[in-house]
């Protein structure tokens, strides 16, 4: 009877010991999205240049292109491996073809949020006939980073989308 109880406690302790580090690692990669809009400004020399302003402070109207950036920062002391970022194209927006950027990442897309494939490999079925999906139809973007993100480092993906 006593022996049985002891065994049970020991098992519980072991379980805790295994879970605790995993829980901590759950916060290793901090993910942040920003939306920005290109604005034309005139500098001191009277030249027109482009600068980025936060979309929340800009006049975003139908037709405005918003540059979305998602940054993954590894806040732990160990490298994070197999980092995969998935970002839906925001509702009411359309992906700008050819605008997706992600250094060191393999980029895939999805029309339905389930099947992901490289650009040009996706199909949609229209009136019972399969055809290649157009970039404007991509609803999700996925960046799969080839190399681990070292401790304290960041990786990012970026795309442009136009407000419908």
């Amino acid at each position, binding site marked *: 009877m006593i022996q049985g109880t002891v065994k049970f406690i020991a098992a519980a302790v072991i379980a805790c010991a295994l879970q605790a580090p995993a829980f901590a690692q759950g916060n290793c990669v901090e993910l942040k999205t920003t939306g920005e809009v290109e604005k034309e400004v005139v500098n001191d020399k009277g030249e027109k240049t482009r600068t980025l302003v936060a*979309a929340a402070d800009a006049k975003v109207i139908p037709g405005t292109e918003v540059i979305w950036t998602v940054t993954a920062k590894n806040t732990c002391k160990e490298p994070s491996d197999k980092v995969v970022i998935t970002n839906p194209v925001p509702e009411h927006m359309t992906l700008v073809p050819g605008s997706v950027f992600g250094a060191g990442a393999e980029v895939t897309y999805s029309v339905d949020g389930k099947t992901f494939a490289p650009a040009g490999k996706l199909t949609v079925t229209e009136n019972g006939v399969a055809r290649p999906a157009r970039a404007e139809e991509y609803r999700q973007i996925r960046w799969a980073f080839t190399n681990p993100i070292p401790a304290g480092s960041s990786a990012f993906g970026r795309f442009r989308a136009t407000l419908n």
Partner: protein
Amino acid sequence: MSRSSRSLVAVGVLSLFGAWSDQARAVGVAAGTDIDSTAQVTYSVGAVNASSTSNTTSVKVAEVLDVVVTLQTASVPVVPGATQQELVYRVTNTGNGPEAFLLQVISTLGGDDFDPTQASPSIYFDTDNSGDLTGGDVPYSPGNNDPVLAADAFVTLLVVNDIPAGVTDGNRGFSRLTATARTGSGAPGTSFAGQGAAGTVAVVGTTGGDGEATGQYLVASIALNAVKSQAVVDQFGGARPIPGARIDYTIVVSATGSGTAATSVFSDAIPANTTYVPGTLQLNSVALSDAADADAGDFSTVPTARVRVQLGDLTQASGSQTIQFAVTIN
């Protein structure tokens, strides 16, 4: 022939005004809508898989101030001295939020032959959607009942002018309706902080936040003249109008003046004590069947015996139209 010439006239009017369009299109997502973006990440540290979600970045869609005015009547034919002549316009909110519009009429424009005289009031809402000024149509009063249109919505308006007595055939008079967004107008991109829908910034769109279209009155006094002649042939080789003799009628119809006599119809009763000779109806020497069918002519005994020929749209340039038919004396 008359159809193709009419299309040519229509095309000419279109290029003259360039403001005729079936449907003005509004742009996109409604002002005040929140555009949200949230990303997810999966990764592994050592042998442990983990995932996390980003912050949500939210952007509120600003209001675009855009309006399009389109003319619904290409050209209105009028006679000298006519009163309460209306031009029909449509004002469409092509922005992305609800907006009130100021309306104005200008009838003292250049490039025409006379200035129409604005009636008072000169703008009415086509309340009953009849396309005509009727008793139930509400007059527009600036600042009191400015039309408030949802995105993509339109309102039909009647601009009412009188025609001076001294104008002559072929004279044209222009009248213009302008609609301006109450929130503001100006160069595209001009913005009005906090004045858009849901407290967003309002931004002047590509139309400048105002729109206009110019209609025209065309003085047209066309008259149709018909000249009828007859030839009698009796059954004995003479020209006496005796029972059994045949009368061949020839009627020449011509239009004089400017403008178009639309869908003109010639109708002539068979004289009393005579009987129509079947199969004798002709238009410009081309036989027309007696049945009411695809060709332009027909003969009917209901309610009284008559022949009828559809002449279509006639102008002075159409030239004379010759109709022939025959009867016998009972």
